[in-house]
């Protein structure tokens, strides 16, 4: 397993490098530059600025410098937000997003998986229909409807929770709910599907014929296999939660990472875009590795390659 993890991490580094290259050249090929603003700047000053950021050199050379800097953990200055380096921005906002994101993901799992299991075990009863319809509705409502609705209900009508800001533990609840509910719905549906597939297997009949109780059949015989679809979805879910956090951060005014994704792209802040993309991809790579490890642990037919 150690070998497996090492190999996968090295592969992951290669993936990151490739993603860095793809992003770099995509951004470079996009018309405009970080410094083209509405304000008229004298050409010689613009040239000076561009030279300062290295934009006077050919693309290839810029790429090499950029990669070697990135390998040392230097993603350069933010081209738009003066005096702030990309590393600063990430260091400041990433912990906020990490807290929000992991809480949302935890909530999604803690809510979605039990609901999915119950729905599968009580298939075609109201314990199946009601949660599954609610979860479908959850999947169909955009976050920016869900967020304000939750804020309205819990913040303004019942005055239970703060609706904006990032000052204490109570501030994280509504945003995490908004972000997590959508994925809870997804996990519930995936878990239900996975569990139903397991419960309809021949070996469940074998277990019944041995006198195994229904609850043992669910926990011991079906849970491992039934969780696999939900586990597989963890990677995409994480990606979605990261990019989806922008909406939530805007609605609840949270100083997280999501806003920078959009600001970076809106302002053509090349360095910021690169830094954030690499961070995003690194998270995905690590998450996929974790997912693969869990899958091997759950499914004896899989082996570490």
């Amino acid at each position, binding site marked *: 397993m150690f070998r497996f993890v090492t190999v996968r991490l090295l592969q992951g580094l290669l993936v990151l490098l490739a993603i860095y290259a793809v992003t770099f050249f995509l951004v470079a090929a996009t018309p405009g530059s970080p410094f083209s603003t509405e304000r008229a700047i004298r050409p010689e000053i613009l040239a000076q600025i561009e030279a300062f950021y290295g934009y006077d050199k050919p693309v290839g050379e810029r790429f090499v410098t950029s990669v070697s800097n990135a390998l040392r953990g230097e993603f350069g200055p933010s081209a738009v937000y003066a005096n702030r380096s990309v590393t600063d921005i990430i260091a400041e906002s990433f912990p906020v997003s990490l807290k929000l994101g992991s809480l949302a993901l935890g909530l999604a799992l803690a809510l979605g998986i039990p609901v999915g299991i119950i729905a599968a075990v009580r298939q075609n009863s109201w314990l199946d229909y009601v949660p599954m319809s609610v979860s479908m509705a959850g999947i169909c409502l955009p976050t920016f409807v869900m967020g304000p609705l939750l804020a309205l209900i819990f913040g303004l009508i019942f005055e239970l929770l703060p609706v904006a800001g990032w000052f204490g533990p109570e501030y994280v609840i509504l945003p995490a709910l908004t972000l997590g509910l959508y994925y809870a719905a997804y996990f519930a549906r995936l878990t239900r599907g996975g569990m139903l597939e397991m419960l309809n297997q*021949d*070996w469940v*009949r074998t277990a019944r*014929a041995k006198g195994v109780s229904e609850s043992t059949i669910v926990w011991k015989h079906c849970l491992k296999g039934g969780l696999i679809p939900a586990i597989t979805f963890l990677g995409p879910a994480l990606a979605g939660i990261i990019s989806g956090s922008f909406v939530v951060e805007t609605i609840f005014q949270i100083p997280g990472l999501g806003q920078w994704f959009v600001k970076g792209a809106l302002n053509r802040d090349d360095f910021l875009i690169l830094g954030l993309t690499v961070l995003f991809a690194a998270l995905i790579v690590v998450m996929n590795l974790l997912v693969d490890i869990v899958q091997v642990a759950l*499914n004896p037919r899989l082996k570490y390659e």
Partner: protein
Amino acid sequence: MALLEVSDLRTSFYTRGGVVRAVDGVSFTLDKGETLGIVGESGSGKSVTCYSLMKLIPEPPGRIESGTAIFDGQDLLRMSARDLRKVRGNRISMIFQDPMTSLNPYLRISTQLIEALRIHRDIDKKAALNKAIAALEEVGIPGASSRVHQYPHEFSGGMRQRVMIAMALITEPDLLIADEPTTALDVTVQAQILDIIKERQERLGTAVILVTHDLGVVAGTCDKVNVMYGGKLMESGTAEQVFYDPIHPYTRSLQKTIPSLQTKGADLYTIPGLPPDVSKPINGCAFYPRCPYPKVAQPEGERPQLVENGDGHCFADCRFCDSSAPIESVLPKHDAGDVDTAQDIREGEGAA
């Protein structure tokens, strides 16, 4: 007193296409240590009969409509779920058709083997594991002490069926129900598996219900035979009676399909037509449309009841065909190379 006494068992499935009367009034008895074969084509209700005894019919859509199954003084069909669980895997065990799907791929063989022991016996894990290893050795799995920790996918089909047998017999049950235990297996393994079941049964004194569509298997293995068709018994008696002296036209046709009994080089016989659709009411006789004998009356009314021919040999008394005609003259010749025929050849050889 009989170990198991089934009377008037009726099981139906309520589908959109109508009510499927899969088992329609079946009665039989089984003594301690005895082997009963239930023979019939696909859809004859033979497996549903067994699943009904263990209440393993999915409900809905299935429903056990009526009947009793007195096992050691208790009616299996009217037991509470809790009491039934104490019987399942403890006093009655079951082996299924497809060993590839009947073992849980996510659990080690050891876990699955000791499960019934741990539920039904007061035994610690270590002792249970030792028993499991012994059980695997008894069904002829080499290297049992290490293989017991493997997963099902590391075993071949035949080996898995051996595991199933070991698992079913580990609690030394009074009754073993084997639902087509050899159908999904390679011909070369089929005979071995039957031998193992037989050997274990003799050692433990277990009664066995062997479900199969292969009359040849029954002849060599069973004491008694039930022949089922369209959810009803067509004929029952000792293996000798049913096998060598069949009375009902259906049994006679079945007998004709055993390849090893047919003339070498001749075209293999298959019963023409298809099994009846039991979701529609059956008038008179379910076999009538396929019956090779000269038809003497229009089929109507209730399906014929079993009558006894002295010495325990029962058969459905059919009044619509003249079964006294000599069979060779009425059985038509059939083309070989039919899919069904090919399968019969395989199974016939495996059993021989």
